[in-house]
């Protein structure tokens, strides 16, 4: 606080009034934030609560979310029905391979864009940026046609390739980071006889760990949640990923919300854990794009 003390008598009363106002203001801020939080979290409370609720209590009046007789039945039914365990396994393998491919390829592009001059650099980079304005759905019709020519529909490889190809945002994010590496480092590497590849793998990548973490989380969350390409290109139930499996559950048991939400909770928990562990990197990554623009 820098309230200037003008006369010896005045400051005490003035300061106490100021702190009272400040406390009031702060509590008001907390109140508004908490009210907002209730709205943000209520849907999750219902998802979570109802996943433990026996079916007879669901959609009763009043609509409670704390189950009176909690049960794991919904989880057992969800896990055993519709090859849900298989779907979980599919999601894990597809999302991790696609993420690994996406991040390493995006890093190589971003590094070249940031640190080297070569013909085509500007055109390529801006083309990539421009494709970020194209919603993925626009690509789905021609991607489906291409995938069926290459026999990549109904295949996990098809999912991995398409997910990994959506790398424009990772390139954008990582390029900003590579640009900030000091030039002296690059010069030193080249004096020591490091070529492009050695510089990339030995120097740039290890230094870029925080940015790579951000790109990895973004890519992973996107791949884990992806729905549209998966539902378009898959029709073999054994290949379904979690979002598809959940949607199938919902259409198969329209009124059995307990099972749908148990399945949803299983799908959401890994994402939340990943997010909570890496949230610092994550939030830095989100904002880096915006502020540097």
């Amino acid at each position: 606080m820098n309230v200037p003390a003008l006369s010896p008598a005045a400051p005490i009363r003035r300061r106490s009034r100021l702190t009272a106002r400040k406390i009031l203001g702060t509590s008001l801020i907390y109140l508004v934030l908490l009210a907002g939080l209730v709205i943000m979290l209520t849907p999750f409370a219902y998802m979570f609560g109802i996943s433990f609720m026996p079916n007879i209590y669901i959609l009763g009046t009043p609509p409670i979310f704390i189950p009176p007789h909690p049960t794991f039945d919904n989880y057992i039914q969800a896990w055993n029905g519709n090859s849900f365990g298989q779907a979980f396994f599919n999601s894990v393998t597809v999302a991790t391979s696609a993420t690994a491919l996406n991040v390493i390829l995006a890093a190589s592009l971003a590094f070249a864009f940031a640190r080297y001059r070569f013909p085509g650099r500007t055109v390529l980079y801006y083309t990539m940026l421009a494709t970020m304005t194209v919603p993925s759905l626009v690509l789905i019709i021609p991607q489906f046609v291409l995938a069926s020519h290459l026999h990549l529909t109904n295949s996990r490889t098809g999912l991995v390739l398409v997910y990994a190809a959506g790398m424009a945002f990772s390139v954008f994010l990582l390029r900003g980071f590579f640009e900030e590496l000091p030039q002296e480092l690059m010069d030193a590497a080249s004096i020591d006889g490091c070529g492009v590849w050695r510089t990339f793998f030995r120097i740039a990548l290890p230094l870029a760990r925080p940015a790579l973490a951000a790109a990895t989380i973004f890519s992973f969350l996107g791949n884990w949640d992806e729905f549209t390409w998966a539902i378009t290109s898959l029709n073999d139930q054994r290949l379904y990923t979690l979002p598809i499996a959940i949607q199938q559950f919902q259409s198969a048991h329209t009124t059995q919300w307990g099972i749908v939400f148990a399945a949803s909770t299983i799908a959401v928990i890994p994402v939340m854990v990943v997010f909570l562990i890496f949230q610092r990197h994550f939030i830095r990554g989100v904002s880096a794009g915006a502020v540097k623009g």
Partner: protein
Amino acid sequence: MQVIQTIPNRGRMRRRKRAWREARRLLPIYALILPGLVLFAVWTIYPLLDALVMSFFDWNPNPAASSTFLGWDNYTKAFADPIFWQAFGNVIEYAVVTVPGQMILGLTVALLLDRKLAARGLFRVLYYLPVITSWVVVSFIFAYLFSSQGGLVNWLLGDNLHVIPDTTTWLGSTTLALPTLMVLGIWKGVGWNMVIFLAGLQSIPNDLYEVASVDGAGSWGRFRYITLPLLRPVVAFVTVMLVIGAFGAFIPMFILTQGGPEHSTETLMTYGYNNAFSSFDFGYGAAITYIFTAFVFALSLVQLKLLRTKIEY
């Protein structure tokens, strides 16, 4: 650059040598970017061009059969199609409500959090949860909360506050389905806006606020004359991203309402998708999505022009 005295016929040799050296410098760079570039070209650039070609054909999904060239027919068909215009209108409505809605709420939360608060990090993380949760999951949660029989919203607004009948059908009504999806869209997006605006706010130098305070600016004055102008680049970025997102909205419409009832939640995406994958009219589907892409791209450029000006401080 070295300065070298050149004898004329040596110049050509030297030039060739330099070209050779340049090629040797470029080779490993191109080799490094090649795998990523190939993947990007095959699965993004080629499909974009292929969709353009498709949109001029009565396109036959069977590669053995030939497709008929139609010229602009798919496009003229779209412009004469009332459902296309309805979908277009829905998308505009959805964007006009959800884009400012998310921005205002996100900025409000960011402004409230932009100070020393206990649990600030916790608030930020919790407000962000809807953003990271799958559209499929949040769509079903909303379908549940907005159930006509025994849903939370009808219970709160109907049974307790009596502002609506307690059996209101939300997603099944031609007037209420789209607004319900808008609420979902805003709820899911507030956290993203908050994080971006918070980063923007934190990049504004603190001394500016102090100078303004000394000059007698109140908190509204500081917001109006410092925060808002300096946030302009961030606002530009957010607007462009949100408009793209709003225009590409698909999953909730696809899984909750299938564009219905009576096309009241049809978007260009659901309409294009269904034309391709339900009616197998790939050419028409591609044309619809292409009109939309061109529109969004042009809109993004205009927004950037309007909103982005260099700011010095």
